[in-house]
């Protein structure tokens, strides 16, 4: 399902990260958040709240200027969003789409802004390494041999403001994806589990907008790990000729051979709201496609021997 959007511009962005990402290859675009004193959920709440506070202060905005907040993260029943937004006075529309939340949030905000129902919207996402490990895998200090296909959840909070005010960057297209399930059931290999969702959404986007991969300056998928990245690259080269502008966000965030890549909703959010926005403002790229992928993984369903479905959403950014 594809929407053409014509009046939504990205006003400002902000990304907060922890120590490991700050020392990575893209560290110069991020701001560092250092808080070693409370529980892991408290640290994530404080990081997301500081990120929203910083962006409002940078643009001399008040809480009452923002009409709507859209976004989500990985905690149980989205508890962390509730704890952050009880301190702010902004109406909330929180969504869950695992690691593809940021493109869903950005697309929904742009739809509502371009219809002139909302004047200024805020889209957010956040993730924290230890909280995700506790919820989805084993205890943090548990001694288990990690497979070579496991990815590392990043600790990042990413926030952006979308409005009608004309700036250099506009959001031009948004494709909603469907849930795809092919029977894959290995919960330690989520990079490969998200490949069918990414491929189906990419094919549908190219068919409905009548474009090809060479019409874009850069195509980025979310966190497919180095194994999933190879599979998607081979498939795209089979169906379209000579695709050489495609890369993966999880591989850009950390140096080589750090697990199998980065993961989590903060990975796509951080690369989108720092590296891509910077290149679009300096007119190095003109049209960028972001395909964020998520594995809808639930420990109860996997325990009952069901397979892991995946979903993916696409957002296209252009420089004006």
């Amino acid at each position, binding site marked *: 399902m594809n929407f053409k959007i014509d009046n939504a511009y990205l006003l400002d962005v902000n990304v907060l990260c922890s120590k490991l990402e700050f020392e990575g290859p893209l560290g110069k675009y991020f701001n560092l958040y250092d808080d070693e004193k409370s*529980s892991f959920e408290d640290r994530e709440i404080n990081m997301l709240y500081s990120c929203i506070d910083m962006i409002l202060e940078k643009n001399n905005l008040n809480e009452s200027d923002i009409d709507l907040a859209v976004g989500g993260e990985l905690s149980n029943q989205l508890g962390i969003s509730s704890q952050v937004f009880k301190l702010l006075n902004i109406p909330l529309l929180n969504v869950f789409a695992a690691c593809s939340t940021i493109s869903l949030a950005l697309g929904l905000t742009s739809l509502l802004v371009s219809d002139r129902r909302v004047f200024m919207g805020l889209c957010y996402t956040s993730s924290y390494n230890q909280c995700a490990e*506790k919820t989805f895998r*084993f*205890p*943090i*200090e*548990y*001694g*288990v*041999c*990690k497979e*070579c*296909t496991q990815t590392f959840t990043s600790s990042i909070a990413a926030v952006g403001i979308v409005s009608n005010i004309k700036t250099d960057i506009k959001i031009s297209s948004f494709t909603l994806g469907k849930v795809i399930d*092919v*029977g*894959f059931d290995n919960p330690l*290999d989520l990079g*490969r*589990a998200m*490949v*069918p969702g990414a*491929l189906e959404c990419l094919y549908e986007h190219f068919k409905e907008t009548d474009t090809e991969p060479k019409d874009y300056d850069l195509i980025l998928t979310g966190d497919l790990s180095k*194994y999933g990245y190879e*599979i998607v690259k081979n*498939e795209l080269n089979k169906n379209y000729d000579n695709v050489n502008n495609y890369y993966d966000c999880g591989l850009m965030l950390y140096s080589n051979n750090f697990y199998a890549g980065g993961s989590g909703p903060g990975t796509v959010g951080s690369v989108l709201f720092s590296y891509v926005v910077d290149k679009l403002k300096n007119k190095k790229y003109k049209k960028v496609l972001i395909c964020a992928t998520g594995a809808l993984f639930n420990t109860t369903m996997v325990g009952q021997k069901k397979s892991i479905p995946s979903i993916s959403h696409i957002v296209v950014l252009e420089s004006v």
Partner: protein
Amino acid sequence: MVSLLKKVYFLCLNLVNIAIIIMVIIMKDRNYYLNLLKCQNDYYKMLKNFLLAFLFGGIISIFGEFIYDIYNKILSFNSDESIMLMYISIILISGVLTAIGIYDNLVMIGKSAFSIMITGFANSVTSAGMDYHYEGIVGVLLNVLKLAGSVIVLGSFSAILVSFILYLWSVIV
């Protein structure tokens, strides 16, 4: 009447055929993606992991013998008592190493040797409890046996079963 029944019968057959064809098309798409996602086992790496686990399992056993010797020869306990004390000492050492945070780095070196021996049991109990210490003493106590619960239940049950069989054997024979 018979011709009407025949028409209904052939209509049902056609519908079943169409359903089978659609299922085959969907399964073909699904199987295509499943074949893409298959991965090969890296046998060279598996062999290296097996040898490392074997080596480090032996090192832990030698360490256990060393502690047994300390209790038996230097502190002059009985043979049975010093075996018990050796087990308790190893559990204490693994618990302290988990609490400091070094244990999962050790596992990355020694692969599965550290998780199969009694040290692995102590590590699972300690790490599961550590996660919940912000929920108070009740949180820790509720979650300490989260990963080790199956070991305890199956151990008790098999002990009861085997002793029951032995009792029947001694009564019959």
